[in-house]
């Protein structure tokens, strides 16, 4: 079914001065999915999201959300997008009730039940002032304010940042609740891979502003593999391996993580004549860490000066 993707970018680029924060991002997010946007701190995720919502003008390229150009989002389109920012910022002087009154005035489709439900879930008092709320409570309030207008597209920028485990779990539960409607799409960035694993259909990985992966969650996990080679003596030097991510050298062992393990990779490894060679599957978090960690060889924290990759 060729339905319009809810988010589409073309060569979306953003420079801050000389530094390129986002480089030629080409992304398409299909409708009805849960899409996780991953990357290290400072890899450009928040910048990309800001560009999607028209908060920031791209240096080059374009983005469209719900079919509408990001730099010219019409109010009707904005009404269908829920945006939760990293810092969960609200007006400190407002009480929970005042914040609800403020927001509900803008959205004709404001759902009191959803709002009340999320507020209760997080245990918020309606007369509490925003500035007196804890980080997690504020996040809950922001979430309630974002979900109550019943948006078609939910864009969450690191929503679980600084949340305690209970609040995080509440957040994930809210996201799953939303997937009940097939036309609701969730696009979120996160550092918490456990939650991502639970809830995401697809992931995209941004590495220093460049999109390096965009695939179903399971494909990512299964594409990254760790191979353990045992040797009788010290492990030899590693030859050039396509798709090499990291190589970890121990006393009699060589652990290699790489992408798209195939026949060529296996041959290259076998050429080192190991005693045993095992392929170990990786969990999502380990795969992610290998994928985005520093490339090349190392033994523990400090690079061993004798080896070369």
């Amino acid at each position: 079914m060729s339905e319009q993707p809810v988010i589409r970018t073309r060569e979306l680029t953003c420079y801050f001065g000389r530094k390129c924060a986002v480089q030629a991002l080409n992304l398409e997010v299909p409708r009805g999915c849960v899409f996780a946007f991953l990357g290290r701190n400072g890899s450009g995720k928040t910048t990309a999201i800001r560009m999607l919502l028209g908060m920031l003008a791209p240096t080059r390229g374009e983005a469209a959300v719900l079919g509408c150009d990001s730099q010219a989002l019409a109010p009707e389109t904005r009404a269908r997008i829920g945006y939760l920012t990293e810092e969960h910022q609200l007006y400190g002087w407002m009480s929970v009730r005042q914040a609800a009154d403020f927001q509900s005035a803008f959205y004709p489709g404001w759902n009191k039940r959803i709002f009340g439900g999320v507020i209760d879930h997080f245990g918020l008092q309606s007369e509490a002032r925003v500035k007196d709320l804890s980080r997690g409570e504020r996040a809950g309030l922001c979430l309630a304010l974002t979900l109550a207008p019943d948006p078609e597209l939910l864009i969450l920028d690191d929503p679980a940042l600084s949340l305690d485990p209970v609040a995080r779990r509440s957040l994930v539960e809210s996201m799953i609740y939303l997937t009940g409607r097939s036309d609701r799409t969730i696009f979120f960035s996160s550092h918490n891979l456990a939650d991502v694993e639970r809830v995401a259909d697809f992931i995209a990985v941004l590495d220093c502003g460049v999109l390096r992966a965009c695939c179903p969650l399971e494909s990512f996990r299964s594409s990254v593999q760790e191979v353990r080679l045992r040797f009788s003596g010290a492990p030899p030097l590693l030859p050039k391996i396509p798709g090499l991510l990291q190589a970890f050298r121990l006393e009699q062992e060589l652990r290699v993580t790489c992408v798209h393990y195939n026949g060529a990779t296996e041959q290259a490894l076998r050429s080192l004549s190991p005693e045993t060679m095992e392929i170990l599957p990786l969990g999502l978090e380990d795969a992610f860490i290998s994928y985005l960690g520093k490339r090349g060889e190392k033994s523990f924290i400090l690079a061993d000066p004798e080896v070369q990759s």
Partner: protein
Amino acid sequence: MNFNCVINTGSSTAIYKQITDQVRLAVATGRLRAGDQLPSVRVFAETLVLNPNTVARAYSDLAREGLIESRPGRGVFIIPKRKVFAREEGRRRLEPLLDALIGEAMAMDFTAADLQAAFAKKLSQWQHENGGKKNHE
């Protein structure tokens, strides 16, 4: 129903596979019997705090294996192991799968001998896992 499914994130096993493995194990050990009802995709997902698509994939794998069956309007039930397809049908379904497997392997530069060795190894792994209860030719 005393079926308790425990999910570990960060494990090297995919979540959907954890579900299918645990259901299979439960059936094998008798904790789940034919006729027991499993929760719907939606409810199960909310219980486990998972994306319903993951649960749906687990259920469809289990259904393909012939362990469970979805009865419209009633729910998802464990069924006694049976042949899902007649032999002919089965062979017909197997052909494209074999083509896909061999085609992919060739594209990845595996030789016929590699493939046969890998296949034999995988088969023995499965047999080991399922304790000989699976029907196979």
